């Protein structure tokens, strides 16, 4: 597609429920990133993929968060046993470059609300 597509756009989860957020990057983009953006804050890094390899997951806040990109294209961010503090917008970004020296293309995000 023309841009990075994320689904769903909105997700309401009950505390303790598992959720899966999907990202379709721009076709051919090697690098894929997940960021978490709390209300009124800047995006915070979660994890980075180069093709199917997860090269950096240092930003994942706990072992309840898990990301995968099995075929080097679509990625899924999974959050198990959601907590209220997980409420945020989850942004996916992709880049044709292997280095973060260049700007990313972001999707519109998934707004997760945990009640």
């Amino acid at each position, binding site marked *: 597609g023309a841009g990075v597509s994320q689904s769903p756009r909105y997700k309401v989860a009950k505390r303790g429920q598992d959720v899966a957020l999907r990202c379709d990057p721009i076709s051919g983009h090697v690098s894929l*990133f997940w960021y978490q953006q709390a209300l009124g804050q800047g995006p915070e890094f979660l994890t980075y993929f180069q093709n199917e390899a997860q090269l950096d997951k240092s930003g994942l806040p706990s072992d309840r968060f898990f990301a995968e990109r099995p075929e080097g294209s679509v990625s899924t961010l999974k959050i198990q046993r959601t907590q209220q503090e997980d409420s945020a917008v989850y942004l996916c970004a992709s880049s044709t470059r292997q280095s973060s*020296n260049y700007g990313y293309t972001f999707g519109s995000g998934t707004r997760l609300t945990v009640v």
Partner: protein
Amino acid sequence: EDQVTQSPEALRLQEGESSSLNCSYTVSGLRGLFWYRQDPGKGPEFLFTLYSAGEEKEKERLKATLTKKESFLHITAPKPEDSATYLCAVYSGGYQKVTFGTGTKLQVIP
């Protein structure tokens, strides 16, 4: 750890009233400084990358400059459609993560 501080948090301008947004950063070795624009309900939209002190880039009414400690985003004769949150971010190499500031929310009033 890389740090980015943006000021002011919010800025309200009359249409045509030029101003500047500030981004102060602390990094171990700057590989790139980025400016993004973010509209409500959307993801950040890439504007510029600056690589070294003294570099400048322009796009329409926006001009970004870089020194060794900070970057400025100058907005000349802004229009209401320039209203958005402007995010600054830095990349210092090694791991691929880019560190963002909290943004400046700009409102341009007709």
